């Protein structure tokens, strides 16, 4: 018997990422999945309260594909957060900051989960389509969409 728990048994360090607005509300509704773990939330609007855990919410610049400079700043901020916090698992409900977080996380060996917004009922979001091949778990909230994307699962929806 080893006298120390193997590294894989250590508690997950969770980085939980969502843009302000609907993405954030959906991530907040999932807090029961994260309670009791060391969790660092990240969003794009100052003043949000962490749905669980003791760490204050980190804020990054908001941006979309129409604003490359904002995206660059956002990327740099997420790089800093990921290097500093060293998450073992990253969970995101999107959008742009989630894409950067899971791609950076993957490079650093974190497990990654993408949860596509409930707003995307006809096809996976653009962000979801960008990351689905690169994450460990990709979820849609619409069961019928799992037929269109064989690597995407559905655990139900946030409502």
């Amino acid at each position, binding site marked *: 018997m080893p006298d120390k728990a193997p590294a894989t048994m250590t508690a997950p360090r*969770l980085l939980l990422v969502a843009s302000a607005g*609907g*993405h954030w509300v959906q991530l907040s509704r999932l807090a*029961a999945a994260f309670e009791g773990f060391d969790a660092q939330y990240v969003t794009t609007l*100052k003043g*949000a309260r962490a749905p669980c855990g003791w760490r204050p919410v980190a804020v990054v610049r908001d941006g979309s594909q129409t604003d490359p400079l904002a995206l660059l700043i956002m990327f740099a901020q997420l790089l800093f957060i990921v290097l500093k916090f060293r998450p073992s*698992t990253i969970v995101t409900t999107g959008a742009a900051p989630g894409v950067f977080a899971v791609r950076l996380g993957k490079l650093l060996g974190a497990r990654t989960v993408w949860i596509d917004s409930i707003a995307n009922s006809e096809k996976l979001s*653009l962000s979801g389509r960008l990351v689905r091949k690169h994450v460990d778990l990709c979820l849609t909230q619409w069961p019928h969409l799992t037929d269109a994307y064989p690597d995407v699962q559905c655990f*139900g929806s946030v409502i």
Partner: protein
Amino acid sequence: MFRIGHLILLSVGTQLPFDRLVRTVDDWAIATGRSDVVAQIGPSTYAPRSLKAFPFLAPEAFRELQLNATIMISHAGMGSILTALEYGKPIIIMPRDHSRGEHRNGHQLATAERFKAVPGIYVASDELGLVEHLTRLAELTGSARLPPHAPASFTDRLRDFISRP
């Protein structure tokens, strides 16, 4: 600050303008002499004459307004829709139309279609539909309040995945 008997809250999200929605609600408020509409209009360029408008509101202040609102009006964004359902508030939603450059794609039209049968959600496909809902405002009722968390069947499976070594 906004503790008044009746409060209508209009919101369009923080990322994109939605002048068509803001202007329609403002015109209606002027025509009917309503002074109880607070609006979070983001980067909209239309300058409301009657609405108490703010580009952005801090999350806590915005939450307070949502809690006190008697009616919510918004774009078909999930933040507003989910919050209205959680707080049991009636909400009128008008989807952004990407063919008019109001969003990057048509997902808000799909959201409006998916949620139009949900009690408490009133979909306005355009300005006329919005005014129709506004003229019978007193008849709009909220849904039964949605619990503030996702079903355990979702969070339990997610927690299992996260906990798995």
